C-alpha cells in the first residue's frame, strides 16, 4: 500500500499538478510516511493518510480501522493527530482526501452527494478494507462518512462525528454564512475565483491557527482550478427540498436513525454553520451516543482542542463493546419502581388541598389547589403537550416561577416522558443562555420575562407562554402556544404510554458557583429514588404539611403525596421571607415541616420579634425544620430553633448531582463542636447512600482507593440510587467525575474532607483549593475556621503560593469593619501575630484583603484561585493592588 506500489509515476498531465501526489515533507505535525496514493477500479486516483505501516513496524495487529472523512474546504491533514494517536493504541486510521479535494485527483466532473458516497465505497474497495470499521467525519465529510456507514452495516463498528449535519429542516432557514455563499454570483467568487471561503473557514479556528498549520491547509488549494472542488461542494449542499442531492441526504439521515453501533459526537458550539441545532438533531437520531461539547471550541474543533485522545478512549471502550451496553445505573429493582407521579395518582379523588400558594393575594389568604384539581390539570396539560407534538425524550425548558402552574407543568412533562430542563434564574442571563444552548430544548414554557430573553437571545425551542398574552405581545415574542390553550386542548384526551424507569426525566443545572453551570441528567428511576430517600429519611407522607420557603422542594410535595404551601414571599428572593409569613403558612396548611434556604433562615430569625402569641403557637407545632443549599452556622441554627422549639433542625449536605448525601441535626452540630476534627461536620450518610474518601497524594490528586478509614484526607465520593445519570453532553467531564472502584457507580464530588470513627463526614474544602506543601496536601477549611476565631477577622481564606509540592501556606483575612484596615497588603504586626497564633499550620505570611473576591452567585464562596494568584504576586515583591 506504499506510494511506490501504487504507481504514482503514472500521473498524467490531464490532472492538476498536485493531484494524487503524496504530501511534501515537513508539514507541521504530519509524518510524511503516513501519506499514500492509490487508484480505484474506475481509474480515479486518491491520496490518503494511513498509519498501517507504523502498526506493522510495531508488530501490532490493528483492532479495527477508523475511516476519517474531511469536509469542505479542508483535507486529510485535519486528521493528522488522530492518525498518529491511532498507531499508539492499536487502531488503523485511514484519512482520505475526497476526490476534487486535498491531494486527490481533480476529475473535472461535478460530484453530487450520492456520487461522493459511491466514491468512498470505491475507495475502500480499492484499499481492500476489511474487518471492523469506525467512520469519522467532519462538516460535509460527516454526511459522506455516514453514507458509507449506512451502506456497510456488516463492517460498521461505530460512528464518530465532529460538527456536521444530516438533516436540514425545511422550516428552519439555512445558516446565514451558507446562505451568503450560495447566493448567485457570490458562489464562484467566494469559493473558486478567490480564496474567501477557504480563508473564512481557516479563520474560524479558536485560537487562531499557527501560520504554518494554516499554510498546510492552503497547500492543495493554491489555484482556482485546484479550488473547483470547494465550489462543487457548496453547490451540492441540499439546501432546498427539490435539490438533486436531497433524496440521498434523506436516505442517509433515515439510515442513521436506525444505527445501533456505538456513537461519539464531539462538538464545538461556536460554529456559525453547524450550530447546536444540528447537534440536537444528531442526538435524537443517535440517542445512545456519547456527547461532549467543548465550551470555547468552534467549527474546526479538531484544531481547537484535542479530539484524538477522547476518540481513542472511546475506541478502547468500543473494542471492549462496553459502549453498546446501556449503563446499568439504577440500584433499586425495577419491580419496586413507583413513578414520580405515583403520589399524585393515589390522591386523584381527594378534594383536600394539595398545593397552597400564599405568594399571591393579601395576607394569610392562600390560593389552594386540591389533589383532584391538580391531577386533572396535570392530565390536561400532559395530553395537550402531547397534542402539540411533545414526545418522549423531547426536552422542555421551564422558565416559570415556582407555584401551582410550575408544579402542574413538571408533572405533566414527566408523565408523558418529556425531559424537564430546569436552570435557576440565579445563573444570570449569560449563564442561562449557555444552559439553554447546551441543553437545546425543543420547547420552552416561560412567563413574559423568560419569553423576552428567549426571543432576544435566540434561545432554542418552540415558545409556549405560561400566562395569557395580548396578540401583539405573542407575535412580538414569537410565542407559538399559550398554556391555557394547550391545557384546554388536552381536556378529556388519552395520555400516551408512561415512560420507563430508565428514561431520562430531567436536566438540572448546577448553580455555577464552582465552575461553569453544567446540565445534570436524571432518569425517572433516579428521581423516584430521591423521593423515596426523602420520604424515609425525613418521615414525610400524606399526613405531613410541608412549608417550603425553598422553591425547588415545593415541587416534590405531590410526589410525596404531601400537602405543600409556599409562604408569602418573593420566591426569587428568599431573604424576603419573614417569620410571620412562615407562621401564616404553618396555620394555612396545618404544617409540621418547614424547608428554608440559608438566606431565608437569616431573615426569618431577624424578623422573629414580629411574632404574636398565635404565631408562636403555630410555629410551636413544627416538628422538623430543614435548611439546605449551603452550610449555616450553629448559632443561626440555634436561633431558628428558639422560634420552633419543638422542631428538630436538619442541615443536609448534597449537590446538584446527588441532592441528599448526609444529614446532621442541630444536636449533631453541638456534638461535633466538641470533636477535634478539622472542617465542617455534615453528619453521617443517610440510608441508601455510601460515602467514601479517596486519599490525596503529594500532588493533591485524589488517587487513593476510596475507603472509609477515619482521619484520611481525600476527595469525597458518593454512591446512591438517586445519584445523577450523567452530565449532559459533557462526556469527558462525565468520565472525569466517575469512579468504578470499589465496584459500582461512584461520583467524585470535588469536595475534600475526611470521615471520623463515628462515620461522620467532615468537609474541608474543594479539591481545587488544596495546598500542596512539602509536608503533603493541606485542605484549607480547618485552618480557616481557627483563623476566623481571631477577633479582628471577619472571614479568612488559606491559599498556597509557590510551585506545586512546595507551596507555602498564606492566610488572607478580611478584617471586621471596626479594625479600620482598608488597604490590601501585609497584615499589621499585631493582627499577623494573632492569626499565626490561631493557625494550626505554619504560615509564611498573613495578608489583608479588605474585600474578598467572591462568586456572583451566592456572594459567599470565596474565589480562592483569584486570591492565590494575588497573594503570589504580592509575595514575590510585585505590586499590591486589590485582589
Amino acid at each position, binding site marked *: 500500500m506504499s506510494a511506490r506500489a501504487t504507481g504514482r509515476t503514472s500521473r498524467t498531465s490531464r490532472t492538476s499538478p498536485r493531484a494524487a501526489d503524496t504530501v511534501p515533507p515537513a508539514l507541521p505535525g504530519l509524518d510524511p510516511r503516513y501519506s499514500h496514493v492509490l487508484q480505484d477500479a474506475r481509474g480515479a486516483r486518491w491520496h490518503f493518510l494511513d498509519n498501517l505501516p507504523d502498526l506493522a513496524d510495531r508488530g501490532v495487529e490493528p483492532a479495527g480501522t477508523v475511516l476519517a472523512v474531511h469536509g469542505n474546504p479542508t483535507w486529510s491533514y485535519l486528521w493528522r493527530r488522530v492518525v498518529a494517536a491511532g498507531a499508539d493504541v492499536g487502531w488503523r486510521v485511514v484519512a482520505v482526501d475526497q476526490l476534487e479535494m486535498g491531494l486527490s485527483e481533480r476529475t473535472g466532473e461535478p460530484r453530487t452527494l450520492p456520487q461522493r458516497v459511491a466514491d468512498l465505497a470505491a475507495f475502500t474497495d480499492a484499499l481492500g478494507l476489511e474487518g471492523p470499521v469506525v467512520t469519522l467525519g467532519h462538516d460535509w465529510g460527516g454526511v459522506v462518512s455516514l453514507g458509507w456507514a449506512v451502506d456497510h452495516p456488516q463492517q460498521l463498528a461505530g460512528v464518530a462525528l465532529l460538527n456536521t449535519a444530516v438533516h436540514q429542516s425545511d422550516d428552519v432557514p439555512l445558516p446565514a454564512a451558507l446562505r451568503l455563499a450560495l447566493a448567485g454570483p457570490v458562489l464562484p467568487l467566494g469559493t473558486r475565483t478567490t480564496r474567501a471561503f477557504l480563508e473564512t473557514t481557516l479563520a474560524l479556528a479558536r485560537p487562531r491557527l499557527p501560520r504554518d498549520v494554516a499554510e498546510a491547509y492552503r497547500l492543495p488549494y493554491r489555484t482556482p482550478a485546484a479550488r473547483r472542488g470547494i465550489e462543487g461542494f457548496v453547490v451540492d449542499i441540499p439546501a432546498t427540498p427539490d435539490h438533486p442531492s436531497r433524496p440521498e441526504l434523506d436516505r442517509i439521515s433515515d439510515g442513521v436513525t436506525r444505527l445501533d453501533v456505538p456513537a461519539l459526537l464531539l462538538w464545538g458550539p461556536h460554529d456559525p454553520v453547524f450550530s447546536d441545532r444540528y447537534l440536537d438533531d444528531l442526538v435524537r437520531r443517535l440517542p445512545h451516543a456519547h456527547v461532549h461539547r467543548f465550551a470555547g471550541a468552534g467549527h474546526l474543533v479538531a484544531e481547537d482542542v484535542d479530539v484524538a485522545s477522547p476518540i481513542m478512549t472511546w475506541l478502547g471502550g468500543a473494542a471492549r463493546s462496553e459502549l453498546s451496553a446501556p449503563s446499568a445505573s439504577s440500584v433499586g429493582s425495577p419491580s419496586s419502581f413507583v413513578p414520580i407521579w405515583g403520589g399524585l395518582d393515589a390522591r386523584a379523588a381527594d378534594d383536600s388541598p394539595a398545593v397552597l400558594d400564599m405568594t399571591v393575594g393579601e395576607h394569610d389568604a392562600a390560593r389552594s389547589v386540591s389533589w383532584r384539581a391538580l391531577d386533572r390539570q396535570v392530565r390536561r396539560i400532559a395530553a395537550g403537550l402531547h397534542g402539540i407534538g411533545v414526545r418522549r425524550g423531547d426536552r422542555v425548558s421551564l422558565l416559570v416561577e415556582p407555584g401551582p402552574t410550575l408544579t402542574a407543568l413538571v408533572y405533566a412533562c414527566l408523565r408523558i416522558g418529556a425531559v424537564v430542563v430546569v436552570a435557576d434564574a440565579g445563573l444570570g442571563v449569560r449563564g442561562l443562555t449557555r444552559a439553554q444552548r447546551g441543553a437545546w430544548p425543543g420547547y420552552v414554557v416561560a412567563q413574559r420575562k423568560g419569553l423576552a430573553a428567549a426571543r432576544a437571545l435566540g434561545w432554542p425551542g418552540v415558545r409556549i407562554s405560561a400566562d395569557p398574552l395580548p396578540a401583539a405581545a405573542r407575535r412580538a415574542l414569537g410565542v407559538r402556544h399559550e398554556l391555557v390553550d394547550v391545557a384546554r386542548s388536552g381536556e378529556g384526551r388519552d395520555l400516551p404510554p408512561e415512560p420507563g424507569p430508565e428514561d431520562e426525566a430531567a436536566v438540572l443545572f448546577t448553580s455555577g458557583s464552582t465552575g461553569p453551570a453544567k446540565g445534570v441528567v436524571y432518569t425517572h428511576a433516579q428521581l423516584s429514588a430521591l423521593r423515596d430517600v426523602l420520604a424515609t429519611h425525613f418521615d414525610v407522607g400524606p399526613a405531613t404539611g410541608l412549608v417550603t420557603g425553598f422553591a425547588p422542594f415545593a415541587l416534590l410535595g405531590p410526589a410525596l403525596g404531601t400537602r405543600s404551601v409556599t409562604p408569602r414571599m418573593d420566591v426569587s428572593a428568599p431573604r424576603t421571607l419573614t417569620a410571620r409569613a412562615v407562621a401564616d403558612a404553618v396555620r394555612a396548611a396545618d404544617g409540621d415541616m418547614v424547608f428554608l434556604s440559608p438566606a431565608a433562615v437569616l431573615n426569618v430569625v431577624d424578623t422573629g420579634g414580629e411574632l404574636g402569641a398565635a404565631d408562636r403557637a403555630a410555629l410551636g407545632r413544627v416538628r422538623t425544620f430543614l435548611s439546605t443549599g449551603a452550610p449555616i452556622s450553629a448559632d443561626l441554627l440555634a436561633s431558628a430553633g428558639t422560634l420552633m422549639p419543638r422542631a428538630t433542625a436538619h442541615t443536609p449536605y448534597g449537590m446538584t448531582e446527588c441532592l441528599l448525601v448526609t444529614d446532621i441535626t442541630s444536636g449533631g452540630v453541638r456534638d461535633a463542636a466538641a470533636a477535634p476534627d478539622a472542617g465542617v461536620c455534615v453528619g453521617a450518610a443517610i440510608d441508601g447512600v455510601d460515602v467514601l474518601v479517596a486519599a490525596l497524594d503529594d500532588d493533591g490528586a485524589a488517587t487513593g482507593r476510596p475507603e472509609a478509614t477515619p482521619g484520611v484526607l481525600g476527595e469525597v465520593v458518593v454512591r446512591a440510587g438517586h445519584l445523577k445519570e450523567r452530565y449532559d453532553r459533557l462526556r469527558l467531564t462525565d468520565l472525569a467525575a466517575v469512579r468504578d472502584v470499589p465496584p459500582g457507580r461512584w461520583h467524585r464530588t470535588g469536595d475534600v474532607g475526611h470521615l471520623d470513627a463515628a462515620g461522620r463526614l467532615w468537609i474541608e474544602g474543594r479539591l481545587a483549593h488544596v495546598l500542596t506543601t*512539602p509536608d503533603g496536601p493541606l485542605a484549607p477549611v480547618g485552618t480557616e475556621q481557627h483563623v476566623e476565631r481571631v477577633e479582628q477577622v471577619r472571614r479568612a481564606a488559606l491559599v498556597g503560593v*509557590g510551585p506545586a*509540592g*512546595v507551596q*507555602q501556606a498564606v492566610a488572607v483575612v478580611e478584617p471586621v469593619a471596626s479594625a479600620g484596615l482598608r488597604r490590601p*497588603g501585609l497584615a499589621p*504586626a499585631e493582627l499577623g501575630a494573632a492569626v499565626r497564633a490561631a493557625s494550626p499550620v*505554619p504560615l509564611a505570611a498573613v495578608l489583608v484583603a479588605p474585600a474578598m473576591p467572591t462568586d456572583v452567585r451566592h456572594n459567599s464562596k470565596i474565589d480562592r484561585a483569584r486570591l492565590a494568584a494575588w497573594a503570589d504576586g504580592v*509575595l*514575590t515583591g510585585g505590586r499590591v493592588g486589590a485582589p
Partner: protein
Amino acid sequence: MTGASGLLGGAVARALVARGDDVRTLQRRASGVAGATDVAGSVTDPAVVTRALGDGVDGVVHLAAKVSLAGEPEEFDAVNVGGTATLLEAARRAGVPRFVQVSSPSVAHAGTSLVGVGAEPADPVGAHGDYARTKALAELLALAGDGGPAGTSVVAVRPHLVWGPGDTQLVERVIDRAARGRLPLLGHGAALIDSTYVDNAADGIVAALDRAPDVHGRAYVLTNGEPRTVADLLAGICRAAGVRPPAWRVPAGLAGAAGGAVEALWRVRPGADEPPMTRFLAEQLSTAHWFDQRATRADLRWRPAVSVDEGLDRLAAYYGGRAG
C-alpha cells in the same frame, strides 16, 4: 575547617568538637573554638594550607571567604576563587576523602524572584556583585574537582541568609541601621525570603560532610524552609534586639538604582566604610527568594531543629542577657 572565626564557621567547628571529632581550623585570626587546634594563616597561601591538611585529615569544610557587600574585585577573586583552588588541590593531593564547599544561593540568583526552586547551577556571568560572582566560580571549580567516593568527594551547600546571636553580617547591620533610623523597607516588604538559623546551617554542613560520598558532585541550598516576608523577618530581628522595626519605605526600583550609584561612588573613595546600599542588597531585600528543600532534607538526612520563631526567641534572650 576554614573560616572558623566567623559566626557560621564557629558554629560548625563547635558542633564537630561536640560530637568528638578532632578539629583543626585554618584562618587568619584565632577561632576561639574550645577544643579545636588553630592554624593561623590564609587559604590563599599554599604552604600554610598544605601544613594545615597534614596527614590523616578525613574531611575539609571550606568556609573561609571574603564576605562583603563592597570591595575590590581582585580581592574577591584572590580569596574566594584562588583560596578554593588552593585548598581543594591540596586536599586531593593529601587524599582527603570528603570536601564540603560552603557556597551561597546568590551564585544562582540573577536578581529575579526565586520561588520554590531547587539548587540551580551556579552562574558566574549572571550573578550580581563580586561576592556572588566569585562564589559561583569557586563552586563550579570545587564541583569540577569532585573525585567521587574513590577520591575526594566534593559536595556544595548553600546556606541562605544565616543569622543568629553574635551575627555581624545581617543581624548587627539590621539592628544598627534600624537604631539610627536608616533601615527602610524596600517595596512593600512583602517579598517572601528564606533564611537559616545558624545552628541549623551548622548541622546541615556537618550532615553534608557525613553524606559527601553518597551525594558528591551536587549542590544543595540549605534553609529553615520557613519563608517569611522581608518586613516580618526584619521586624522580628529588631524586636528581639529591642529596637524599633523599620516603618518607612523606598520603592524597590529606586533602591536598586541608588545601590548602583552608591557602588560606583564607593569605588572611587576606597577605604571608606561600607556603602549604605548596594544593588545586591536591594535585590536581596525586594525580590522573593525561597527554595524547595525536599531534596536537601532527603539527601542530607537532615531537618532544621530550630524554627524561625524559636531562633528569634534565642536572639532576644541573647540581646536581653547582654543588655542586662
